[in-house]
């Protein structure tokens, strides 16, 4: 409505799932944003105010919870969650970065074979084996470049700077500068 500030954020391409909460002036764009959104939890996805989520895919499994603070700016980020992603405020994330709190299959070969059968067209009556899930935490003021990947269980400290293409599998201290595949700390931001 003209001349009125909307009370809550908007998704440009459809009706938001009922358990998604957007703060004031937060804008989500992209028809694919919720194509893989399966979470049934209360407030499964909550995003603070003044965020720009441009082409972000919110792929949340049934039990996933994702929270994002204020003034975040993400472009074409893939968020994959089966447990929890906790992202602070003033976080900027670039094109084609993937953040995931699970590997989606077990590491042990024997269990992977069982999982392959369970996931197959003949999987009826074959339950999937347990699969590791570990929450990912990204603190305030983190910058993550395009084509990076943040894997299960990682905590990225406040103000850290993650170079394009870095693959993170371990925690990053605050204000660290990180690069490479596999990623290494290469310096600090100040």
């Amino acid at each position, binding site marked *: 409505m003209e001349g009125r500030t909307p009370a809550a954020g908007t998704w440009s391409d459809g009706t938001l799932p009922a358990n998604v909460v957007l703060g004031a002036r937060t804008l989500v764009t992209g028809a694919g944003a919720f194509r893989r959104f399966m979470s049934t939890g209360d407030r499964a996805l909550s995003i603070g105010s003044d965020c720009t989520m441009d082409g972000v895919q919110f792929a949340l499994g049934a039990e996933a919870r994702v929270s994002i603070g204020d003034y975040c700016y993400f472009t074409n980020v893939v968020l994959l969650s089966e447990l929890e992603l906790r992202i602070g405020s003033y976080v900027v994330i670039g094109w084609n970065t993937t953040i995931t709190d699970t590997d989606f299959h077990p590491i042990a*070969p024997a269990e992977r074979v069982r999982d392959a059968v369970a996931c*197959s067209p003949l999987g009826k009556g074959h339950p999937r084996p347990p699969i590791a899930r570990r929450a990912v935490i990204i603190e305030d003021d983190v910058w993550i470049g395009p084509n990076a990947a943040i894997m299960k269980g990682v905590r990225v400290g406040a103000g850290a700077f993650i170079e394009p293409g870095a693959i993170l599998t371990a925690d990053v201290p605050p204000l660290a500068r990180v690069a490479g595949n596999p990623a290494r700390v290469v310096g600090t931001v100040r």
Partner: protein
Amino acid sequence: MTPDRRIPGDWFDQPVPGNVEIHDEAYVETAFSFLLYRSQLAAGVRIGRGASVYLGTMFDVGRQGRVSCGAFTLVNGARIVCDAEILIEDYVLISWNVVLMDTYRVPADPALRRRAVIAAASGEPRRVDGHVEARPIHIKRAAWIGFDACVLPGVTIGEGAIVGARSVVTEDVEPFTIVVGNPARMVRRIEPGETTP
């Protein structure tokens, strides 16, 4: 598949090519995966029992190429570039945006590569096949290739091995190991356990 080789419910209105063998108990999401397929062999692609091939997977298979996806393999959106042979054994898991390429298709020498791309411009369809030798890829039983990884020509990935997400595999991978990074290096061994389901 229907008798005229359509996949029921497919949004892509084309049949599956005649020399593609799909097991009755396999799942292929869409015939679009065969848009770039041009193998002239009797069975250019074989998809085994219980296997699933999801949207995003492209069988970019040249005239003499042959791809086999074993029983219970899961191919979740991979680019399969094949001019010789890509053999994927049973229970292998292949994640999204993985590239398996048994050939570079064009020569490394820029002068020769010019010739290949000039020839492609007048071809119908426009392809750059067959200018360099292809070297088969072999992915053994129950291996797992993580998302966005790339497997280069001539590589064999051992039984049960794991290729980490976004890795580039340039050399053979030992069975029951994890390799990661670009270029991929072994980081640890894993216990085989009982791998018959």
